[in-house]
């Protein structure tokens, strides 16, 4: 008998703290496990945006994703995370990962991703109200940090990992792991990689919750859902061939690569029109990288998520877009009970 699967939601980056408060409380009432705020270059600060919800909520977990140790020194991350965790009395989450659009906006290089993330996670994990932290890493240093005020239950620190090196590092150090834009093929491979590295590190998969980010475009009207999925498609694995190969041929992957600009134009211009790319190809990407369709399709999506659970996922983080309240209601009424 497989256990239940926790359902989290990831909110859009353009929401105000007031909107996040309302949506977070709605999610809490439906038994959703956590609310994540998105960290985009021109978005509000994803920690500060959670302050009203942190205060007003009582059970739901909350935190930003993805924060990278390129954009913020781990000590600054630790202070912001600890402060958020105090406000919500020990219910904070964070996803630490590799480079994102924020780094690109800052014009930063992408070097030493695995080492940066590892050192960052080690610093966050070692932060304590009782012990002075002195950390002399190859990339980051922290001297004399002892937040005597950080006395709540520690926050949950997730490591964002997809490919072998990051998975191997995560298996050694992470308390929680989140995969992005998963397919059954990649999830199976990732779990096998994790298991090998867990064994080498003397750890057990059962002790490290595994989550997966899945785009959610399920709406009352299928046409609206598909339009939203097409507009957002550029962000699905950033259309990296690595994500597409399980369901596209090499030739099709090359075609997508050559037409990446059309996908990003659709995203930037907020339109479902992806110029020059056949609809059949777009439909296959949409069908494989996320949940898209009308409310009538909900059983199909439940089966898909159960399959992920059977492959090893203990949590799923559904990335919401327009009309988040309707999405949360649908998820809360149909998905959450079905995955208990």
């Amino acid at each position: 008998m497989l256990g239940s699967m926790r359902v989290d939601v990831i909110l859009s980056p353009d929401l105000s703290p007031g909107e996040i408060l309302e949506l977070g409380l709605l999610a809490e009432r439906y038994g959703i496990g956590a609310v994540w705020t998105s960290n985009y270059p021109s978005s509000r600060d994803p920690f500060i945006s959670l302050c009203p919800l942190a205060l007003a909520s009582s059970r739901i977990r909350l935190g930003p994703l993805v924060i990278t140790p390129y954009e913020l020194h781990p000590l600054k991350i630790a202070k912001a995370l600890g402060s958020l965790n105090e406000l919500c009395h020990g219910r904070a989450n964070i996803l630490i990962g590799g480079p994102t659009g924020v780094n690109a906006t800052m014009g930063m290089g992408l070097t030493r991703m695995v080492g940066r993330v590892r050192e960052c996670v080690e610093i966050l994990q070692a932060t304590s109200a009782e012990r002075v932290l002195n950390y002399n890493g190859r990339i980051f240093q922290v001297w004399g940090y002892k937040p005597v005020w950080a006395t709540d239950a520690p926050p949950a620190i997730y490591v964002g990992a997809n490919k072998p090196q990051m998975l191997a590092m995560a298996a050694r150090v992470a308390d929680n792991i989140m995969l992005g834009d998963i397919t059954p093929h990649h999830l199976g491979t990732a779990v096998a990689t994790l298991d090998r590295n867990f064994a080498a590190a003397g750890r057990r998969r059962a002790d490290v919750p595994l989550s997966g980010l899945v785009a959610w475009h399920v709406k009352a009207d299928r046409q609206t859902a598909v339009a939203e999925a097409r507009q957002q498609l550029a962000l699905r694995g950033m259309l990296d061939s690595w994500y597409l190969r399980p369901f596209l041929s090499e030739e099709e992957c090359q075609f997508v690569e050559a037409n990446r600009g059309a996908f990003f134009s659709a995203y930037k211009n907020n339109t479902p029109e992806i110029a020059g790319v056949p609809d059949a190809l777009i439909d296959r990407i949409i069908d494989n990288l996320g949940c898209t369709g009308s409310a009538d399709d909900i059983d199909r999506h439940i089966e898909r998520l159960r399959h992920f659970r059977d492959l090893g996922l203990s949590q799923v983080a559904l990335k919401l877009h327009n009309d988040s309240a309707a999405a949360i209601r649908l998820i809360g009424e149909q998905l959450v009970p079905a995955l208990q």
Partner: protein
Amino acid sequence: MEIDIILNEFASPQEALELGLMAERYGARGVWSSNYGWSRDPFFTLSLLAHQSSRIRLGPMAVSPAELHPLKMANLLFSLNELSRGRAMIMVGGGGAVLQAIGGKRERMIRRTRECLEILKGASPDKMMNYNGEIYKVWGYQPKWYTDTPPLIYFGSNHPQSRKLSTELADGLITSDFVVPLMKDFIGKAHAELQAAGRSTHDFRISNFWAWHIKKDAAASMREARRELMLRGWLGEQYFRPFLDADEVQLMRAHEQDFLNAFLRGTDVIENVPDELVTKMVRNISFVGGLDQIDAAIETLKAFAAAGLTEIALRVHDDPADAIRLIGERVIPALR
């Protein structure tokens, strides 16, 4: 001249809310949160107050671009500004305890701050920013949600170069531990630089960080002031020359470690330094003593106002609610 309160580094968001609302009721202009190595995130400290207050300004002090990229600083500051409906402020600094805690160095401070101020002042909801600085880059930044009245941006400026940069790019400057004669000279030069930059002196804010230790218990006040004395201008000669003679300055400098030991140990015992010298120092570079010292403090504040300060930032320490009550009941009315 208006009054700001600087909270101590241990204030939680809940304490900052209570103290900030008290300061607001007394008519203080603003509340600053301290950014220390061990402290909470200084933006977070003010998050509840931002949400629940209605008039008082609020912001972190000091945040250095060497510890926080200007893009992240912008998003934090504008988020706090949105929560407070346009009442946020910030003091950008060269880098202190937090920078030390991450093993950073104060390199190219003026250049860093120039770029930081240009990014903070240049951000707009209507126009995409592309900034190619020597140190910082920002590509495609457009916070469309940043529509409240912009926050006030100060630079912590105790030196000619930083003053000149402030008068060129910031909304105001904040000195620290400047006694009245130093302040007069500094403000005169700042006004001249503002005019040279084609800016009005009337629209530019000038403040001074000043330690408040006055308490009902004069002995407790003196203990607190002695304990904190190391932080007054970090015992830089220029801060003390206006009221110490050359021998006293030399003696003070020779015993820097003794002052530092007192601060680090949290004690008022400053070994190897005569009490008369310590007393002279604390009496001139902070407000110290019992309630009978309030009138003298008010006179000093009036002298600061006459020198041209638009506001002063009083740093409270132990028992901050008592300090704010005293300031609110005695000092703020006297300065109206």
